[in-house]
């Protein structure tokens, strides 16, 4: 297992380097002088010169890259052109909001997706299956930004059950322990704050969970169908095992394996989808920070946020692979 872990980590190094090259090239593929493009038409000569210096654009390409990577190793993601604050700090400050949203959405997605996938496979081609498949196809087809708006219209504006946007009522101020507001509220005994945070998170989490839960249901259905047609299931049934036991113990365990991969990878993609969702719900996370940077073409911030999203994505696929190795010796032992 140790060897497998080491090998897998070594393998991700070249990928990480290439990711850095891609992100590094982003500013440099801008047509024309990137400094001019970044500052806009009305920039003065001095401004352009200052920016070129700040971004090291006058140095040869390989030296620019070396500096960029050295900076990263020192935890320097650059400074925002708009606020002049260090980007890493700004991102770390917003990370808990995004993570809380993503984790809560994952929970919702699994609670809905797993039963849906199982039932759909068991009652294959029944009306329930057709309805569930249609439902999960709608889930992966719906534009997140539009679904967010529709939920706002229905649950916040028409029914008035939930707040339109934000993460917390401005009057509520729970003490910070973990940065996850619901958890903080519960930990400090401030149940009103926890309830308020919960009311705020429901709609954005539902938007993210729609895509996520639908994906889980689709994969689980497909895997369950494969597993259910295999011989050992027939054996289990043949020896008179209760159907519930066959399904939940024998079939689900094997069918869930590939789904674990999907859960891991989609979790990271969820963070990407957060850009749209956080924007619509004014959720103070990394996604909204990136959106604000896009609006004013704050390049270093876009680069920094992209890097953080890619890193989370790579980390979660690494974790999924390792976890998979623990579960399945065939993968661990294969060259």
């Amino acid at each position: 297992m140790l060897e497998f872990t080491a090998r897998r980590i070594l393998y991700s190094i070249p990928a990480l380097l290439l990711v850095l090259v891609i992100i590094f090239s982003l500013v440099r593929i801008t047509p024309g002088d990137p400094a001019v493009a970044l500052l806009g038409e009305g920039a003065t000569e001095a401004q352009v010169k200052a920016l070129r210096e700040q971004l090291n654009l006058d140095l040869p390409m390989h030296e620019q890259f070396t500096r960029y990577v050295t900076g990263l190793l020192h935890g320097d993601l650059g400074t925002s052109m708009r606020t002049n604050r260090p980007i890493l700090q700004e991102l770390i400050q917003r990370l808990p909001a995004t993570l809380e949203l993503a984790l809560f959405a994952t929970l919702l997605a699994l609670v809905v997706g797993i039963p849906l996938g199982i039932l759909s496979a068991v009652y294959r081609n029944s009306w329930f299956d057709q309805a569930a498949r249609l439902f999960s196809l709608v889930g992966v087809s719906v534009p997140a930004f539009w679904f967010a708006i529709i939920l706002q219209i229905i649950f916040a504006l028409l029914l008035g059950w939930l707040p339109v946007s934000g993460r917390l009522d401005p009057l509520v101020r729970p003490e910070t322990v973990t940065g996850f507001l619901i958890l903080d509220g519960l930990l400090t005994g401030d149940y009103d704050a926890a309830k308020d945070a919960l009311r705020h998170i429901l709609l954005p989490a539902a938007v993210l969970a729609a895509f996520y839960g639908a994906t889980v249901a689709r994969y689980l259905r497909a895997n369950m169908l494969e597993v259910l047609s295999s011989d050992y299931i027939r054996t289990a049934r043949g020896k008179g095992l209760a159907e519930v036991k066959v399904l939940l113990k024998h079939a689900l365990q094997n069918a869930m394996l590939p789904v674990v991969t999907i859960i891991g990878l989609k979790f990271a993609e969820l963070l990407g989808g957060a850009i749209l969702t956080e924007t619509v719900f004014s959720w103070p996370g990394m996604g909204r920070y990136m959106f604000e940077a896009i609006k004013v073409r704050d390049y270093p911030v876009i680069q920094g946020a992209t890097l953080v999203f890619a890193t989370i994505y790579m980390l979660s696929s690494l974790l999924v692979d390792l976890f998979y190795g623990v579960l399945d010796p065939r993968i661990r032992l294969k060259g």
Partner: protein
Amino acid sequence: MTNLTRTQSQTGAAARPIWVERWLQRQAMTLHFLKRNPLAVVGLVILGTILLGALLAPVIAPHDPTKVSVKEMLDPPSAAHPFGTDFLGRDLFSRILHGGRNTLAIGLAVVTLAFVVGVSVGIFSGFTGGWVDVVIMRIVDAMLSFPALVLAIAFAAALGPSLTNSMLAVALTLIPQFARLARGQALGVRSLLHVEAARSLGAGTGRLLWKHILPLCLGPLLVQASLSLGSAILQTASLGFLGLGAQPPTPEWGADVSAGAQFIRESPWVALFPGLTILLSVLAFNLIGDALVDWMNPRTRKGY
């Protein structure tokens, strides 16, 4: 296979030419496929309707999609404006019909570009093997290390906001997916006997790839393409929503939702209809693609 068909047609009431026989067979198979996949039929109907609306937009659109009319700002749906009007008094129904032309063209162009580039790279990589393959696949892996939407946003922001750039950005995120799949297919096919035979007859690399390898890889790639159409439309619309895609006054569904978003309190229809059409068209492609995936997989097909 050919012989079989011929004998069958000879035993039939009247001997039909072989191509008619083949055509009939194909029709029967299509019909069988559609009968077993009611959801695919739903997809085809939705797609057909949207396609028709988009193609006939100049004829059936009741108004000019970019004509501003201050007097009719944010009018609710009525006989004159079936979907209402937007914040500039433009007829939403006409904008959606015309926007559909853009959206479908976007999806098709993006997927075609990604398909051609991705499949060429992937098949070449898989066929050549060795260090070329390793290098290409490492780059592909690196590109797949980004959440697709994040990469598309980063590219689109770097290239500058415009419809063409947002399409390029989305195509760039799809290319590695096609390359990956095509490489896997090529790896499986390259050592087949007929390829060996063609090679020993002196066929060059280009001819081998084009005539002997590509045709065998096409099936799964085309299914992937039909699924990608949906995500291409979704992603481009998302970029449009973020202001990185089509610029005003071009009618585009994603950008139209974005423009309507701030008026939902009083006039929910401005965001409702353009988004609904995005949902329906992506859904249509996914319904069709999904049924095709099921159909291509012998294991899931067994139940039919």
